[in-house]
């Protein structure tokens, strides 16, 4: 495994994975992965294409069941065998395709599958109020009407709705898969601000990203997977761009210690 890096000050990670293996037939997708995700911190999960980022995410989300190893939730061992198990713990995932129905409006999408009822019929008023409140809390203010169909939203707005949908359910860990991949500069900023607000609300956030600009912009911690192994994790301040790229491409880095590039300004605001 990679270098030993001092853990962050938080006492116990909200979520821990220890010795996780996952294979698909003969293909070993994950090998002995240890991962820590802390409350109130944004962890960036980096890795090249096919490194195992998505498999790891889907294991945590309960879409795949792990072969070996153990997950811990707030210190207690847990089994996550289905998305329902994950949801029960408070784990929500925003996939890259967002999984929004274009023909439904924002409220309908946010409550899809968990609609509130009153005497058997949909309680639209109640749902609209709750959705409005969640969006306001997250300061997603650019949508003009909460009743507009999702098809009419911009990319950043759609991403925001997907995130709001995920955090609506008292979730404690939110995983975002490439949240800025398809977005322009303005909308990327909007989504990264939203990610920071999730952290400030005390959620554990994991962001999967290729984009090192975004990673250093928003991450408190960085974890890198390479060929199915988690080669390093630690506070973002212990990395710089070159070391992350080294870990992503070779699984090791000759560089270490505090970053020296211009991103220091960002970490100063925290």
């Amino acid at each position, binding site marked *: 495994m990679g270098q030993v890096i001092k853990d962050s000050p938080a006492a116990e990670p909200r979520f821990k994975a220890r010795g996780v293996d996952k294979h698909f037939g003969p293909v070993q997708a994950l090998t002995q992965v240890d991962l820590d995700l802390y409350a109130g911190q944004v962890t960036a999960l980096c890795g090249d294409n096919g490194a195992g980022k998505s498999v790891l995410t889907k294991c945590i989300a309960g879409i795949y069941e792990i072969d070996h190893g153990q997950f811990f939730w707030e210190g207690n061992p847990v089994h996550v065998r289905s*998305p*329902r198990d994950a949801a029960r713990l408070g784990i929500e995932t925003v*996939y890259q*395709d*967002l*999984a*929004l*129905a*274009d*023909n*439904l409006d924002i409220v*309908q*999408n946010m409550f*899809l*599958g*968990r*609609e509130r*009822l009153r005497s*058997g*019929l*949909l309680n639209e*008023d109640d749902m*609209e*109020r709750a959705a409005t409140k969640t969006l306001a809390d997250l300061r997603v203010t*650019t*949508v*003009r*009407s*909460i*009743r*507009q*169909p999702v*098809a*009419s*939203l*911009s*990319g950043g*707005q*759609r*991403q925001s709705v997907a995130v709001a949908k995920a955090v609506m359910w008292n979730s404690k860990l939110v995983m975002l898969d490439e949240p800025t991949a*398809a*977005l*322009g*500069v*303005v*909308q990327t900023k909007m989504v990264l601000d939203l990610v920071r607000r999730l952290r400030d609300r005390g959620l554990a956030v994991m962001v999967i990203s290729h984009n090192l600009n975004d990673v250093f912009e928003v991450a408190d911690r960085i974890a890198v997977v390479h060929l199915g192994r988690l080669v390093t994790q630690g506070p973002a301040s212990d990395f710089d761009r070159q070391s992350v790229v080294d870990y992503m491409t070779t699984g090791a880095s000759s560089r270490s210690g505090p970053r020296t590039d211009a991103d220091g300004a960002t970490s100063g605001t925290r």
Partner: protein
Amino acid sequence: MARAEAPETAPDPTAAAEAATLEVPPELVAQSLGEWFRAWLTRIRSGDSGVLPVILALVIITIVFQAISPHNVFLSAGNLVNLFQQSAVFIVLAMGELFVILLGEIDLSIGYAGGVGAAVTVQLVQPATTKWPWWAAVLAGLLVCVVIGALQGTLVTRLRLSSLIVTLAGLLIWQGTMLIVLGLAFSGYPSLAGLDSNRQVLYNLMNGTIDPVISWIGAAVVVLAIAALLWFGDSRRRRSGLVAPPVSLTLLKIVLIAIVATSVVAICNINRAAFGTQEGVPWVIPIVLAVFAVWMTILQRTRFGRYVYAIGGNPEAARRAGINLAAIRTLCFIICTFTAGIGLLLYASYLGGMSGNINGGQLVLYAIASVVLAGTSLFGGRGKVIHGILGGLVIGGIYNGMGLLGLDVRWQFIVTGLVLLVAITIDSLSRRSATSGSAARV
């Protein structure tokens, strides 16, 4: 499935803000009737015209057939009531077909699948043989339709067969089955015409009329009930600061509904018999409205309905939301054939019996054309129950007009085909312009 993709490039902030304001359906933020009306016009100009084309089509059909029908008989009370009765069959079939079309599937079999149900019902009430009470026979017929729908729906959802092929096979299978059921009669085709009160009930579904005074009272009760629902619902939402239409729009809707109801009752209450009296609202109108009200409530106000739209819009999103896709889809196929059973029962009542000559293939194409003409998308996810009524009236109008002109079955086939072609062309073009429109916006 093609979906509008997120924008690739970074627009400057002002352009982005401007685009965002342009994208909102303008009616949603309108504060007054004038504002709402202008917003509506903007939306029509941008290609998303809602039910406007189908209402225009109704007007044009009325004007054309009134002008060219012999003795300008099209708008006579007698013909209009006949038109309502003919349309009722198309409307009910269309409201059933809507459920599978919303999923992005299709059911070609409903003409004959419903025909099997109607044949069973009509056979069971025959006084010479089984003598079932009419309600038991109706339940049995509809139960047969439910079984057929469950069968086809299971094949489509569990075995993942194409609904087009499964129901195309069904079209043939149920036609044969219907002929077998009809062949069980001891002589000729089973009839609903008879003096026994049991068969009379089924005959009256289409041909019976409600006393004019009771018609007026019933219409008033229905209009008042709808008005109260609309008014209190909208004002409650306005008070709570939720998205709601302006007061004047709510009033406009209520007034329109009152006008339509008054006109229909007034037309039906004109004596339309050449000799003696024949007046009053046919039973079939409240029957159709009841089916409409139930299906609309289910689609708009229940979880099941919400999931139907979600599956039509993005099945993957629905699956991830924990929705049981197979169950919802199968249920839609069941509702579709069940409703078709009601439709064909009305048709049997209209014909005064069940005949092996009914053209179930033409009926299903009319049903599909009805909803698609009125704005339901064959690609799934977009459509309303009211589309069945509006589109069914258009198709009923064309069908009725062709009858008045004395066009024979050859021309009816050609016109059926053309109408369907026009309907799907409108659907595809509007879909294309909507997609290119959203691409242009971002």
